[in-house]
């Protein structure tokens, strides 16, 4: 799959290229600013774009705005945003439409190469990857509602679920069996009155809708 990278820090960009190539992506363009990335997407029609949030010329949220344009003009292109810090509003903006093929991760996650490659593949495959910190900050905002009914374990499962993990991924992260995870998820969906859904990203969509983001 073709990929485009937009990251103004040269060091990190070199690292990203290496990681994406290792993960089997064909990096067709790498740029350092938000306008160039739109031109590159137009030209190459990649399957995945990895964008830094903060880029020249303004060093504010150019990446988010470029991502929104990409989502609108080329809906089949998956977008993964990298940010120095968590800003829920960015995540909210990004997730407000279709949550297929969207990711929002902290930059430092790139260092966890294996997990980052996982997230890349998930997003490129039409799934979702949300930074655990984004998810818990979103949960934090909704402290006084049905979420209180969840047990701590169920909360853990919900956070992992919201970050886009599959049942197997959740089971691995929590060191429990997949069937235990499935049971937890059923219980969560029941407690939160959420409809059962099959695909991973639909679950995320449901969770985010519930969190007031989607």
């Amino acid at each position, binding site marked *: 799959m073709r990929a485009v990278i937009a990251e103004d*820090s040269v*060091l*990190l960009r*070199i*690292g*990203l290229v*290496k*990681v994406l190539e*290792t993960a089997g992506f064909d990096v067709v363009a790498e740029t350092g600013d938000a306008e160039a990335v739109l031109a590159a997407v137009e030209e190459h029609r990649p399957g995945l774009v990895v964008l830094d949030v*903060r880029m020249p010329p303004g060093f*504010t949220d150019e990446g988010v705005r470029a991502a929104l344009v990409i989502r609108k003009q080329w809906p089949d292109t998956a977008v993964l945003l990298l940010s*120095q*810090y*968590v*800003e*829920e*509003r960015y995540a909210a903006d990004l997730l407000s439409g279709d949550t297929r093929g969207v990711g929002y991760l902290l*930059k*430092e996650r*790139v*260092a*966890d*190469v*294996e997990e*980052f*490659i996982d997230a890349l593949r998930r997003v490129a495959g039409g799934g979702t990857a949300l930074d655990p*910190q984004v998810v*818990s*900050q979103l949960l*934090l*905002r909704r*402290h*006084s509602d049905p979420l209180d009914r969840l047990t701590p374990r169920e909360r853990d499962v919900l956070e992992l679920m919201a970050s886009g993990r599959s049942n197997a991924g959740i089971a691995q992260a929590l060191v429990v069996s997949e069937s235990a995870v499935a049971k937890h998820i059923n219980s969560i969906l029941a407690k939160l009155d959420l409809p059962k859904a099959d695909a991973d990203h639909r679950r995320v969509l449901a969770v985010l809708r519930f969190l007031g983001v989607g």
Partner: protein
Amino acid sequence: MRITSVARVLRKPFDGVGRAVAFLTTGILVQLAPLLVLAVPWLNGGPTEALSVIVAVLVPLSAVALATPVLTAAQTARFRTRLGVAIPRLPAVAGASRTDRARQWLRTPATWRQIGYHLLAGPLIALAGALTLLLWAAAGVAAGVYVWIWALPPETRVEHLGYTTQAVYVTATGLAGLYGAAWLSRALTRLDTRTATARLGPSRAELLQMRVEEVTESRAGVLDAADAERRRIERDLHDGAQQRLVSMAVNLGLAKVTLKDLPDDARKVIDEAHREAKEAIAELSNLVRGLHPAVLEDRGLDAALSGIAERAPLPVGLTVHLPVRPAPAVEAVAYFVVSEALANVVKHARAGRADVRVETRGGILLVVVTDDGVGGAAPEGGTGLAGLAKRVASVDGTFSISSPAGGPTVVTVELPCAP
């Protein structure tokens, strides 16, 4: 020995008299200008009709009043150069337009004090000064009466005066007059200095106010400089060391993923290095967050605080309601307050949860941090609360804590911010 001490006593009243006389003389000269202006209509006999008399009085008076800044500057220069007395300048009036400034100027009490000096106290003292100069001259002539007599041709001297004892009295009176003139000169100088300092310079309250404004300004400058410095360090660390560490960690991580057929010990070394690099990244991020997080600068308190709340090891409820962003210095203090207060809760309170509320009320940014812990926290306890109170005071905020034994603990901070 004896003679010198007698001479010293006799000379004492004349110490610094030259300076005083010069000072009074320049006072008369400076005062002449407004006096002339006031006198202009009367030089040729003056008007006689009531209306023109009023005009003839009012117009020059207004002219002098309007010339107050110039006159004040002249007087201030006189005090500085003749006596070395510095009369502090009043702050310039602020205003958008010329009319605004004029209106403001007329409303300032100091303006009227100055006009009063130039029209009343100044002329009176100058008049007294002129009389003193006359006294100097007269007393000088009288004290030297023998010199004058001696200068006359001998025939005239004998014919008109003879050997009169009157001349002794005249000499004595003259000498007394000299002492009187010296005393007067010095007294008038003192009086003028006191009057001018009180009338031309700022009053004690105004002086204090000016001082407070100065101090406030310089303190704000220091705070801003410190904030700017923290931001600079944050950016340097982020653009420099942090990027390098991430790049290094990425390379190590890639090595782990791609070099599958490495011997076990080499793999272990890479694993270890990778973990250390990631820990270094985390530590550096923590350090940077403690300085001045980029999220605070870019996105404001709400986003920055939810980061703190998320990282806290206990559940933290967060309510932020800010219609407009406060000044950067206030934001930085509010961020610091929440960060420190939560750190305290974690360390000391044994709390199950904490709540953070941030909102504006009028011109006040209110920060309330509550926990359900054991209470008993006191600013004297060395729990970082004292530092917190100081940081709050640096922006004129108030800090209060209620922490009865058994809890709950409530930290309330109010920070002034323009509405």
